[in-house]
Protein backbone atom coordinates (compact mmCIF):
# COMPACT_ATOMS: atom_id res chain seq x y z
CA UNK A 1 0.00 0.00 0.00
CA UNK A 2 2.77 2.42 0.99
CA UNK A 3 4.54 1.80 -2.29
CA UNK A 4 1.31 2.62 -4.14
CA UNK A 5 1.04 5.97 -2.41
CA UNK A 6 4.62 6.84 -3.29
CA UNK A 7 4.24 5.87 -6.93
CA UNK A 8 0.89 7.64 -7.30
CA UNK A 9 2.28 10.78 -5.71
CA UNK A 10 5.32 10.70 -7.98
CA UNK A 11 3.09 10.39 -11.05
CA UNK A 12 0.83 13.25 -9.96
CA UNK A 13 3.84 15.45 -9.17
CA UNK A 14 5.10 14.63 -12.68
CA UNK A 15 1.82 15.83 -14.19
CA UNK A 16 1.88 19.02 -12.12
CA UNK A 17 5.47 19.70 -13.16
CA UNK A 18 4.38 19.17 -16.76
CA UNK A 19 1.66 21.79 -16.38
CA UNK A 20 4.17 24.13 -14.77
CA UNK A 21 6.37 23.83 -17.84
CA UNK A 22 3.37 25.06 -19.87
CA UNK A 23 3.98 28.53 -18.46
CA UNK A 24 6.11 29.52 -21.39
CA UNK A 25 6.06 28.43 -25.03
CA UNK A 26 9.78 27.63 -24.79
CA UNK A 27 9.30 24.86 -22.24
CA UNK A 28 5.74 23.79 -23.01
CA UNK A 29 6.77 20.98 -25.37
CA UNK A 30 8.86 19.43 -22.64
CA UNK A 31 5.90 19.74 -20.28
CA UNK A 32 3.64 17.92 -22.69
CA UNK A 33 6.15 15.10 -23.15
CA UNK A 34 6.65 14.79 -19.40
CA UNK A 35 2.87 14.45 -19.11
CA UNK A 36 2.86 11.70 -21.74
CA UNK A 37 5.63 9.81 -19.95
CA UNK A 38 3.79 10.06 -16.63
CA UNK A 39 0.61 8.78 -18.28
CA UNK A 40 2.46 5.82 -19.75
CA UNK A 41 3.99 5.14 -16.35
CA UNK A 42 0.58 5.31 -14.68
CA UNK A 43 -0.98 2.86 -17.11
CA UNK A 44 2.02 0.53 -16.94
CA UNK A 45 1.95 0.55 -13.15
CA UNK A 46 -1.75 -0.29 -12.98
CA UNK A 47 -1.18 -2.99 -15.58
CA UNK A 48 1.39 -4.68 -13.40
CA UNK A 49 -0.65 -4.12 -10.26
CA UNK A 50 -3.65 -5.88 -11.79
CA UNK A 51 -1.44 -8.48 -13.54
CA UNK A 52 -3.06 -7.83 -16.91
CA UNK A 53 0.01 -8.45 -19.08
CA UNK A 54 -1.15 -11.90 -20.11
CA UNK A 55 -4.63 -10.76 -21.15
CA UNK A 56 -4.12 -10.22 -24.87
CA UNK A 57 -7.58 -8.70 -25.30
CA UNK A 58 -6.52 -5.69 -23.22
CA UNK A 59 -3.61 -5.14 -25.58
CA UNK A 60 -5.98 -5.21 -28.53
CA UNK A 61 -8.23 -2.59 -26.92
CA UNK A 62 -5.27 -0.37 -26.10
CA UNK A 63 -3.83 -0.66 -29.59
CA UNK A 64 -7.25 0.05 -31.11
CA UNK A 65 -7.67 3.21 -29.02
CA UNK A 66 -4.08 4.23 -29.72
CA UNK A 67 -4.43 3.85 -33.48
CA UNK A 68 -7.67 5.86 -33.53
CA UNK A 69 -6.01 8.57 -31.43
CA UNK A 70 -2.96 8.77 -33.69
CA UNK A 71 -4.99 8.92 -36.92
CA UNK A 72 -7.32 11.49 -35.40
CA UNK A 73 -4.46 13.72 -34.28
CA UNK A 74 -2.95 13.65 -37.78
CA UNK A 75 -6.17 14.59 -39.54
CA UNK A 76 -7.29 17.61 -37.58
CA UNK A 77 -6.64 21.21 -38.59
CA UNK A 78 -5.98 24.05 -36.20
CA UNK A 79 -9.21 25.85 -37.09
CA UNK A 80 -11.02 22.72 -35.84
CA UNK A 81 -9.42 22.77 -32.39
CA UNK A 82 -12.63 23.81 -30.57
CA UNK A 83 -14.59 20.82 -31.87
CA UNK A 84 -11.61 18.53 -31.31
CA UNK A 85 -11.34 19.54 -27.67
CA UNK A 86 -15.13 19.30 -27.33
CA UNK A 87 -15.08 15.77 -28.76
CA UNK A 88 -12.26 14.67 -26.45
CA UNK A 89 -14.06 16.21 -23.47
CA UNK A 90 -17.02 14.05 -24.43
CA UNK A 91 -14.98 10.87 -24.72
CA UNK A 92 -13.50 11.54 -21.28
CA UNK A 93 -16.95 12.03 -19.79
CA UNK A 94 -18.25 8.96 -21.60
CA UNK A 95 -15.41 6.81 -20.27
CA UNK A 96 -16.14 7.96 -16.71
CA UNK A 97 -19.85 7.23 -17.10
CA UNK A 98 -19.10 3.72 -18.39
CA UNK A 99 -16.71 3.07 -15.52
CA UNK A 100 -19.43 4.16 -13.10
CA UNK A 101 -21.96 1.77 -14.67
CA UNK A 102 -19.60 -1.21 -14.64
CA UNK A 103 -18.49 -0.56 -11.09
CA UNK A 104 -22.13 -0.37 -9.92
CA UNK A 105 -22.83 -3.74 -11.52
CA UNK A 106 -19.73 -5.20 -9.88
CA UNK A 107 -20.84 -3.81 -6.50
CA UNK A 108 -18.93 -2.19 -3.64
CA UNK A 109 -16.20 -3.76 -1.52
CA UNK A 110 -16.52 -1.34 1.38
CA UNK A 111 -18.42 1.68 2.55
CA UNK A 112 -21.56 1.00 0.53
CA UNK A 113 -23.30 4.34 1.02
CA UNK A 114 -20.49 6.47 -0.36
CA UNK A 115 -19.83 3.96 -3.11
CA UNK A 116 -23.33 4.32 -4.52
CA UNK A 117 -23.32 8.08 -4.05
CA UNK A 118 -20.01 8.65 -5.85
CA UNK A 119 -20.73 6.13 -8.59
CA UNK A 120 -24.13 7.69 -9.30
CA UNK A 121 -22.71 11.22 -9.36
CA UNK A 122 -19.88 10.14 -11.67
CA UNK A 123 -22.46 8.55 -13.93
CA UNK A 124 -24.56 11.72 -14.03
CA UNK A 125 -21.69 14.13 -14.65
CA UNK A 126 -20.12 11.77 -17.17
CA UNK A 127 -23.38 11.50 -19.10
CA UNK A 128 -23.90 15.28 -19.16
CA UNK A 129 -20.33 15.74 -20.36
CA UNK A 130 -20.73 13.13 -23.08
CA UNK A 131 -23.96 14.31 -24.68
CA UNK A 132 -23.23 17.99 -24.10
CA UNK A 133 -19.83 17.71 -25.74
CA UNK A 134 -21.18 15.75 -28.68
CA UNK A 135 -23.78 18.44 -29.38
CA UNK A 136 -21.13 21.17 -29.01
CA UNK A 137 -18.72 19.33 -31.32
CA UNK A 138 -21.41 18.79 -33.97
CA UNK A 139 -22.37 22.45 -33.78
CA UNK A 140 -18.78 23.63 -34.11
CA UNK A 141 -18.08 21.27 -36.98
CA UNK A 142 -21.27 22.50 -38.63
CA UNK A 143 -22.76 19.01 -39.05
CA UNK A 144 -25.87 19.54 -36.94
CA UNK A 145 -27.69 21.96 -34.61
CA UNK A 146 -26.04 24.85 -36.39
CA UNK A 147 -28.43 27.40 -35.03
CA UNK A 148 -29.19 27.85 -31.37
CA UNK A 149 -32.42 25.98 -30.75
CA UNK A 150 -34.79 27.68 -28.38
CA UNK A 151 -37.27 25.36 -26.74
CA UNK A 152 -40.30 26.76 -24.97
CA UNK A 153 -39.89 26.44 -21.23
CA UNK A 154 -36.26 25.43 -21.71
CA UNK A 155 -35.19 26.58 -18.29
CA UNK A 156 -38.07 24.83 -16.49
CA UNK A 157 -37.52 21.54 -18.32
CA UNK A 158 -33.81 21.65 -17.54
CA UNK A 159 -34.31 22.43 -13.87
CA UNK A 160 -36.99 19.74 -13.51
CA UNK A 161 -34.70 17.17 -15.08
CA UNK A 162 -31.77 18.18 -12.90
CA UNK A 163 -33.87 18.07 -9.74
CA UNK A 164 -35.31 14.66 -10.55
CA UNK A 165 -31.82 13.42 -11.49
CA UNK A 166 -30.41 14.55 -8.16
CA UNK A 167 -33.31 12.98 -6.24
CA UNK A 168 -32.73 9.71 -8.08
CA UNK A 169 -29.06 9.78 -7.07
CA UNK A 170 -30.15 10.14 -3.45
CA UNK A 171 -32.65 7.31 -3.96
CA UNK A 172 -29.87 5.17 -5.43
CA UNK A 173 -27.96 5.33 -2.13
CA UNK A 174 -30.82 3.65 -0.26
CA UNK A 175 -32.35 1.37 -2.89
CA UNK A 176 -29.53 -0.02 -4.91
CA UNK A 177 -31.72 -1.08 -7.80
CA UNK A 178 -29.64 -1.39 -10.93
CA UNK A 179 -32.45 -0.27 -13.24
CA UNK A 180 -32.12 3.23 -11.77
CA UNK A 181 -28.82 3.41 -13.64
CA UNK A 182 -30.67 3.59 -16.94
CA UNK A 183 -33.08 6.27 -15.76
CA UNK A 184 -30.10 8.28 -14.51
CA UNK A 185 -28.33 7.82 -17.83
CA UNK A 186 -31.40 8.98 -19.72
CA UNK A 187 -32.07 12.03 -17.55
CA UNK A 188 -28.52 13.30 -17.44
CA UNK A 189 -27.92 12.65 -21.13
CA UNK A 190 -30.96 14.79 -21.86
CA UNK A 191 -29.63 17.51 -19.53
CA UNK A 192 -26.37 17.60 -21.45
CA UNK A 193 -28.22 18.02 -24.73
CA UNK A 194 -30.49 20.73 -23.34
CA UNK A 195 -27.57 22.68 -21.91
CA UNK A 196 -25.74 22.88 -25.21
CA UNK A 197 -28.39 22.81 -27.91
CA UNK A 198 -29.22 26.47 -27.59
CA UNK A 199 -25.65 27.73 -27.33
CA UNK A 200 -24.63 30.20 -30.02
CA UNK A 201 -21.16 30.39 -31.50
CA UNK A 202 -19.81 33.11 -29.27
CA UNK A 203 -20.87 31.34 -26.06
CA UNK A 204 -18.81 28.33 -27.12
CA UNK A 205 -15.63 29.29 -25.23
CA UNK A 206 -17.61 29.15 -22.00
CA UNK A 207 -19.29 25.83 -22.70
CA UNK A 208 -16.13 24.11 -23.93
CA UNK A 209 -14.17 25.18 -20.86
CA UNK A 210 -17.04 24.09 -18.67
CA UNK A 211 -17.28 20.64 -20.27
CA UNK A 212 -13.49 20.34 -20.05
CA UNK A 213 -13.83 20.88 -16.33
CA UNK A 214 -16.71 18.40 -16.07
CA UNK A 215 -14.75 15.67 -17.83
CA UNK A 216 -12.16 16.01 -15.08
CA UNK A 217 -14.72 16.16 -12.28
CA UNK A 218 -16.39 13.00 -13.61
CA UNK A 219 -13.02 11.21 -13.68
CA UNK A 220 -12.21 12.37 -10.16
CA UNK A 221 -15.53 11.23 -8.69
CA UNK A 222 -15.43 7.91 -10.53
CA UNK A 223 -11.99 7.54 -8.91
CA UNK A 224 -13.64 7.87 -5.50
CA UNK A 225 -16.14 5.15 -6.48
CA UNK A 226 -13.55 2.64 -7.69
CA UNK A 227 -11.11 3.65 -4.97
CA UNK A 228 -8.22 4.76 -7.15
CA UNK A 229 -6.20 7.77 -6.01
CA UNK A 230 -4.67 8.43 -9.44
CA UNK A 231 -8.08 9.04 -10.98
CA UNK A 232 -9.06 11.23 -8.04
CA UNK A 233 -5.92 13.37 -8.21
CA UNK A 234 -5.47 13.75 -11.96
CA UNK A 235 -9.21 14.19 -12.47
CA UNK A 236 -9.20 17.07 -10.02
CA UNK A 237 -6.32 18.73 -11.94
CA UNK A 238 -8.41 18.65 -15.12
CA UNK A 239 -11.47 19.86 -13.23
CA UNK A 240 -9.60 22.83 -11.77
CA UNK A 241 -8.06 23.78 -15.12
CA UNK A 242 -11.48 23.82 -16.75
CA UNK A 243 -12.95 25.89 -13.93
CA UNK A 244 -10.20 28.49 -14.16
CA UNK A 245 -10.75 28.82 -17.91
CA UNK A 246 -14.54 28.91 -17.56
CA UNK A 247 -14.19 31.76 -15.11
CA UNK A 248 -11.86 33.71 -17.41
CA UNK A 249 -14.18 33.18 -20.37
CA UNK A 250 -17.29 34.27 -18.45
CA UNK A 251 -15.60 37.44 -17.26
CA UNK A 252 -14.32 38.26 -20.74
CA UNK A 253 -17.78 37.86 -22.22
CA UNK A 254 -19.66 39.50 -19.39
CA UNK A 255 -21.91 36.42 -19.10
CA UNK A 256 -22.61 34.30 -16.09
CA UNK A 257 -22.18 30.53 -16.32
CA UNK A 258 -25.76 29.94 -15.15
CA UNK A 259 -27.05 32.25 -17.87
CA UNK A 260 -25.10 30.40 -20.55
CA UNK A 261 -26.14 26.94 -19.36
CA UNK A 262 -29.76 27.45 -18.46
CA UNK A 263 -30.72 29.07 -21.74
CA UNK A 264 -31.20 32.50 -20.32
CA UNK A 265 -31.55 34.73 -23.35
CA UNK A 266 -29.76 38.01 -23.21
CA UNK A 267 -32.11 40.79 -24.14
CA UNK A 268 -30.34 41.21 -27.41
CA UNK A 269 -31.05 44.43 -29.18
CA UNK A 270 -31.88 42.78 -32.48
CA UNK A 271 -35.03 44.72 -33.34
CA UNK A 272 -33.42 47.94 -32.43
CA UNK A 273 -30.52 46.87 -34.54
CA UNK A 274 -32.43 46.94 -37.81
CA UNK A 275 -33.21 50.58 -37.26
CA UNK A 276 -29.62 51.26 -36.40
CA UNK A 277 -28.51 49.86 -39.69
CA UNK A 278 -30.34 52.63 -41.49
CA UNK A 279 -28.74 55.24 -39.34
CA UNK A 280 -25.37 53.67 -39.96
CA UNK A 281 -25.74 53.77 -43.72
CA UNK A 282 -26.26 57.51 -43.52
CA UNK A 283 -22.93 58.09 -41.90
CA UNK A 284 -21.06 56.45 -44.69
CA UNK A 285 -19.91 59.67 -46.29
CA UNK A 286 -17.10 60.62 -44.04
CA UNK A 287 -14.01 62.60 -44.80
CA UNK A 288 -11.86 59.54 -44.45
CA UNK A 289 -12.07 56.76 -46.99
CA UNK A 290 -10.28 53.68 -48.17
CA UNK A 291 -8.04 55.72 -50.45
CA UNK A 292 -6.44 57.35 -47.43
CA UNK A 293 -5.22 54.05 -46.01
CA UNK A 294 -1.79 53.93 -47.69
CA UNK A 295 -0.89 57.41 -46.52
CA UNK A 296 -2.06 56.63 -43.00
CA UNK A 297 0.04 53.48 -43.03
CA UNK A 298 3.03 55.41 -44.29
CA UNK A 299 2.93 57.99 -41.54
CA UNK A 300 2.23 55.51 -38.77
CA UNK A 301 5.04 54.42 -36.51
CA UNK A 302 3.17 52.29 -34.07
CA UNK A 303 0.52 49.83 -35.26
CA UNK A 304 -1.68 47.35 -33.42
CA UNK A 305 -3.57 44.64 -35.27
CA UNK A 306 -6.77 43.29 -33.68
CA UNK A 307 -7.95 39.99 -35.16
CA UNK A 308 -11.41 38.61 -34.37
CA UNK A 309 -13.24 35.41 -35.19
CA UNK A 310 -14.34 36.97 -38.47
CA UNK A 311 -10.71 36.81 -39.56
CA UNK A 312 -10.65 33.08 -38.85
CA UNK A 313 -13.92 32.58 -40.75
CA UNK A 314 -12.48 34.43 -43.73
CA UNK A 315 -9.28 32.34 -43.44
CA UNK A 316 -7.32 35.59 -43.55
CA UNK A 317 -4.55 34.58 -41.13
CA UNK A 318 -1.85 34.59 -43.78
CA UNK A 319 -2.78 38.11 -44.87
CA UNK A 320 -2.34 39.24 -41.29
CA UNK A 321 1.13 37.74 -41.47
CA UNK A 322 1.81 39.52 -44.80
CA UNK A 323 0.55 42.81 -43.43
CA UNK A 324 2.72 42.37 -40.36
CA UNK A 325 5.76 41.65 -42.52
CA UNK A 326 5.42 44.64 -44.84
CA UNK A 327 4.73 47.02 -41.97
CA UNK A 328 7.72 45.74 -40.07
CA UNK A 329 9.88 46.02 -43.15
CA UNK A 330 8.96 49.69 -43.09
CA UNK A 331 10.40 49.90 -39.56
CA UNK A 332 7.12 50.21 -37.75
CA UNK A 333 6.42 48.88 -34.32
CA UNK A 334 3.68 46.28 -34.88
CA UNK A 335 1.87 44.34 -32.18
CA UNK A 336 -1.10 42.02 -32.28
CA UNK A 337 -3.78 42.39 -29.62
CA UNK A 338 -5.78 39.32 -28.68
CA UNK A 339 -9.02 39.48 -26.74
CA UNK A 340 -9.66 36.41 -24.52
CA UNK A 341 -12.77 35.46 -26.52
CA UNK A 342 -11.38 36.28 -29.97
CA UNK A 343 -11.75 32.65 -31.01
CA UNK A 344 -14.20 29.86 -30.30
CA UNK A 345 -12.25 28.56 -27.31
CA UNK A 346 -9.66 29.92 -24.87
CA UNK A 347 -6.41 30.77 -26.68
CA UNK A 348 -7.74 29.72 -30.08
CA UNK A 349 -6.66 32.90 -31.88
CA UNK A 350 -3.07 32.50 -30.67
CA UNK A 351 -2.92 29.04 -32.18
CA UNK A 352 -4.33 30.20 -35.51
CA UNK A 353 -1.82 33.04 -35.77
CA UNK A 354 1.06 30.84 -34.66
CA UNK A 355 0.05 28.43 -37.41
CA UNK A 356 0.26 31.28 -39.92
CA UNK A 357 3.88 31.71 -38.85
CA UNK A 358 3.54 34.78 -36.65
CA UNK A 359 6.11 35.03 -33.86
CA UNK A 360 4.29 34.44 -30.57
CA UNK A 361 6.28 37.24 -28.91
CA UNK A 362 4.20 39.68 -30.99
CA UNK A 363 0.90 38.39 -29.60
CA UNK A 364 -0.28 40.44 -26.63
CA UNK A 365 -3.19 39.71 -24.37
CA UNK A 366 -5.76 42.32 -23.43
CA UNK A 367 -4.33 43.48 -20.11
CA UNK A 368 -0.87 43.97 -21.53
CA UNK A 369 -1.87 45.82 -24.70
CA UNK A 370 -4.66 48.08 -23.46
CA UNK A 371 -2.38 50.77 -21.97
CA UNK A 372 -0.64 51.06 -25.35
CA UNK A 373 -3.60 52.14 -27.49
CA UNK A 374 -3.39 55.91 -26.73
CA UNK A 375 0.16 56.04 -28.11
CA UNK A 376 -0.76 54.01 -31.19
CA UNK A 377 -1.07 55.62 -34.62
CA UNK A 378 -3.20 53.02 -36.35
CA UNK A 379 -5.27 50.09 -35.13
CA UNK A 380 -6.19 47.57 -37.79
CA UNK A 381 -9.20 45.45 -36.82
CA UNK A 382 -9.96 42.38 -38.87
CA UNK A 383 -13.24 40.59 -38.27
CA UNK A 384 -13.67 41.91 -34.74
CA UNK A 385 -16.77 43.72 -33.54
CA UNK A 386 -17.93 43.24 -29.96
CA UNK A 387 -14.42 43.06 -28.53
CA UNK A 388 -13.65 46.62 -29.69
CA UNK A 389 -17.09 48.14 -29.19
CA UNK A 390 -16.83 51.19 -26.92
CA UNK A 391 -20.51 50.71 -26.09
CA UNK A 392 -19.25 48.18 -23.54
CA UNK A 393 -18.05 51.13 -21.48
CA UNK A 394 -20.83 53.58 -22.17
CA UNK A 395 -24.13 51.96 -23.18
CA UNK A 396 -25.64 51.03 -19.86
CA UNK A 397 -28.43 48.46 -20.05
CA UNK A 398 -27.20 46.73 -23.22
CA UNK A 399 -25.97 43.12 -23.03
CA UNK A 400 -22.45 44.23 -23.76
CA UNK A 401 -22.21 46.75 -20.93
CA UNK A 402 -19.38 45.90 -18.58
CA UNK A 403 -17.61 43.54 -20.94
CA UNK A 404 -13.86 44.20 -21.00
CA UNK A 405 -12.77 45.39 -24.46
CA UNK A 406 -9.65 46.23 -26.40
CA UNK A 407 -9.53 50.02 -26.30
CA UNK A 408 -8.94 50.51 -30.01
CA UNK A 409 -10.96 53.72 -29.90
CA UNK A 410 -8.13 55.41 -27.98
CA UNK A 411 -5.79 55.18 -30.95
CA UNK A 412 -5.26 58.04 -33.40
CA UNK A 413 -6.84 56.14 -36.28
CA UNK A 414 -8.72 52.87 -36.62
CA UNK A 415 -9.20 50.87 -39.80
CA UNK A 416 -11.84 48.16 -39.64
CA UNK A 417 -12.01 45.27 -42.06
CA UNK A 418 -15.33 43.57 -41.37
CA UNK A 419 -17.63 41.55 -43.58
CA UNK A 420 -20.55 43.94 -43.12
CA UNK A 421 -21.76 46.61 -40.77
CA UNK A 422 -24.01 44.29 -38.81
CA UNK A 423 -23.47 44.21 -35.08
CA UNK A 424 -21.57 41.37 -33.45
CA UNK A 425 -22.90 38.49 -31.38
CA UNK A 426 -24.12 40.79 -28.62
CA UNK A 427 -26.48 42.50 -31.05
CA UNK A 428 -25.28 45.90 -29.94
CA UNK A 429 -24.39 48.38 -32.64
CA UNK A 430 -20.70 49.20 -32.73
CA UNK A 431 -20.46 52.89 -31.95
CA UNK A 432 -16.90 52.90 -33.24
CA UNK A 433 -18.11 52.78 -36.86
CA UNK A 434 -19.43 56.32 -36.55
CA UNK A 435 -16.27 57.92 -35.20
CA UNK A 436 -14.39 60.47 -37.27
CA UNK A 437 -11.02 58.75 -37.05
CA UNK A 438 -12.37 55.39 -38.17
CA UNK A 439 -12.20 53.98 -41.69
CA UNK A 440 -14.39 51.01 -42.45
CA UNK A 441 -13.71 48.57 -45.26
CA UNK A 442 -16.60 46.16 -45.77
CA UNK A 443 -16.16 42.77 -47.38
CA UNK A 444 -14.44 39.43 -46.99
CA UNK A 445 -11.07 40.08 -45.37
CA UNK A 446 -9.44 37.52 -47.65
CA UNK A 447 -10.29 39.85 -50.54
CA UNK A 448 -10.02 43.29 -48.97
CA UNK A 449 -6.75 42.77 -47.10
CA UNK A 450 -4.65 41.63 -50.10
CA UNK A 451 -5.75 44.76 -52.01
CA UNK A 452 -4.58 47.02 -49.21
CA UNK A 453 -1.32 45.11 -48.92
CA UNK A 454 -0.78 45.38 -52.68
CA UNK A 455 -1.47 49.14 -52.67
CA UNK A 456 0.94 49.69 -49.84
CA UNK A 457 3.66 47.66 -51.55
CA UNK A 458 3.25 49.64 -54.79
CA UNK A 459 3.43 52.94 -52.93
CA UNK A 460 6.78 52.09 -51.45
Amino acid sequence: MAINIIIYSAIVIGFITGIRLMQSPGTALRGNRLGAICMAAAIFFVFSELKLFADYMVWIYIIAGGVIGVIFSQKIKMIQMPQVVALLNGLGGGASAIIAVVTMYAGPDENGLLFWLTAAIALGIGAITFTGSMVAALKLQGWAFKRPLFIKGHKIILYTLLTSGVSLIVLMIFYQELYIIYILLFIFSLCGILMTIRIGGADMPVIISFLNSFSGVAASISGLAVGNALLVGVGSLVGVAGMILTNIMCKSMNRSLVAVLSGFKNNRASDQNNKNEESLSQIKNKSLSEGKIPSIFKKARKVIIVPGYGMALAQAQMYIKQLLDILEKDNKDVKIAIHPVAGRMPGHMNVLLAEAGIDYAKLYDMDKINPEFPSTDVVICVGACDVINPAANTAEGTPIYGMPILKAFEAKAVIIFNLDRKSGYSGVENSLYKEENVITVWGNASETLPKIIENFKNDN
Partner: protein
Amino acid sequence: MLMAMLIFLIVCAVLGYIVISSVPSLLHTPLMSGMNALSGITAVGALYVYSISSPGLKVIAAAALILAIINVTGGFLITEKMLRMFKKENNK
Protein backbone atom coordinates in the same frame (compact mmCIF):
# COMPACT_ATOMS: atom_id res chain seq x y z
CA MET B 1 -9.31 5.33 3.17
CA LEU B 2 -11.95 7.74 1.88
CA MET B 3 -10.54 10.46 4.10
CA ALA B 4 -7.10 9.95 2.56
CA MET B 5 -8.62 10.15 -0.92
CA LEU B 6 -10.39 13.41 -0.14
CA ILE B 7 -7.22 14.94 1.26
CA PHE B 8 -5.37 13.83 -1.86
CA LEU B 9 -8.10 15.41 -4.00
CA ILE B 10 -7.84 18.72 -2.20
CA VAL B 11 -4.04 18.80 -2.30
CA CYS B 12 -4.06 18.09 -6.05
CA ALA B 13 -6.75 20.70 -6.68
CA VAL B 14 -4.85 23.39 -4.75
CA LEU B 15 -1.51 22.61 -6.41
CA GLY B 16 -3.27 22.43 -9.76
CA TYR B 17 -4.90 25.78 -9.17
CA ILE B 18 -1.54 27.38 -8.45
CA VAL B 19 0.27 26.07 -11.52
CA ILE B 20 -2.64 26.31 -13.95
CA SER B 21 -3.44 29.94 -13.02
CA SER B 22 -0.01 30.97 -14.22
CA VAL B 23 -0.36 29.41 -17.68
CA PRO B 24 -0.55 32.43 -20.05
CA SER B 25 -3.62 32.92 -22.24
CA LEU B 26 -1.27 32.42 -25.20
CA LEU B 27 -1.18 28.71 -24.35
CA HIS B 28 -4.75 28.13 -23.21
CA THR B 29 -5.71 25.97 -26.18
CA PRO B 30 -2.71 23.63 -25.77
CA LEU B 31 -3.50 23.58 -22.05
CA MET B 32 -7.02 22.37 -22.79
CA SER B 33 -5.95 19.68 -25.22
CA GLY B 34 -3.32 18.65 -22.68
CA MET B 35 -6.10 18.36 -20.12
CA ASN B 36 -7.99 16.15 -22.58
CA ALA B 37 -4.97 13.87 -22.51
CA LEU B 38 -4.86 13.92 -18.70
CA SER B 39 -8.56 13.07 -18.47
CA GLY B 40 -7.48 9.90 -20.27
CA ILE B 41 -6.36 8.82 -16.78
CA THR B 42 -9.78 7.16 -16.81
CA ALA B 43 -7.88 4.40 -18.64
CA VAL B 44 -6.60 3.43 -15.20
CA GLY B 45 -10.15 3.23 -13.86
CA ALA B 46 -11.23 1.28 -16.94
CA LEU B 47 -8.43 -1.26 -16.43
CA TYR B 48 -9.45 -1.59 -12.81
CA VAL B 49 -13.13 -2.26 -13.47
CA TYR B 50 -12.14 -4.50 -16.39
CA SER B 51 -10.10 -6.70 -14.10
CA ILE B 52 -12.90 -7.18 -11.58
CA SER B 53 -15.90 -7.64 -13.88
CA SER B 54 -17.61 -10.66 -15.35
CA PRO B 55 -16.98 -11.51 -19.03
CA GLY B 56 -20.15 -9.73 -20.18
CA LEU B 57 -19.25 -6.52 -18.37
CA LYS B 58 -15.67 -6.73 -19.59
CA VAL B 59 -16.90 -5.72 -23.05
CA ILE B 60 -18.44 -2.54 -21.64
CA ALA B 61 -15.34 -1.79 -19.59
CA ALA B 62 -13.30 -2.26 -22.76
CA ALA B 63 -15.33 0.51 -24.42
CA ALA B 64 -14.29 2.87 -21.62
CA LEU B 65 -10.69 1.75 -22.04
CA ILE B 66 -10.71 2.47 -25.78
CA LEU B 67 -12.27 5.93 -25.28
CA ALA B 68 -9.72 6.76 -22.59
CA ILE B 69 -6.78 5.65 -24.73
CA ILE B 70 -8.07 7.77 -27.64
CA ASN B 71 -8.00 10.70 -25.22
CA VAL B 72 -4.47 9.91 -24.11
CA THR B 73 -2.87 9.47 -27.53
CA GLY B 74 -5.04 12.03 -29.33
CA GLY B 75 -4.64 14.61 -26.55
CA PHE B 76 -0.87 14.41 -26.23
CA LEU B 77 -0.22 14.25 -29.98
CA ILE B 78 -2.52 17.18 -30.75
CA THR B 79 -0.89 19.23 -28.00
CA GLU B 80 2.53 18.33 -29.39
CA LYS B 81 1.47 19.35 -32.91
CA MET B 82 0.10 22.65 -31.66
CA LEU B 83 3.04 23.56 -29.46
CA ARG B 84 5.44 22.97 -32.33
CA MET B 85 3.84 25.90 -34.12
CA PHE B 86 4.71 28.38 -31.41
CA LYS B 87 8.01 29.59 -32.73
CA LYS B 88 10.18 32.60 -32.35
CA GLU B 89 11.55 34.14 -35.51
CA ASN B 90 15.20 33.25 -35.73
CA ASN B 91 16.19 35.57 -38.53
CA LYS B 92 15.90 38.69 -36.39
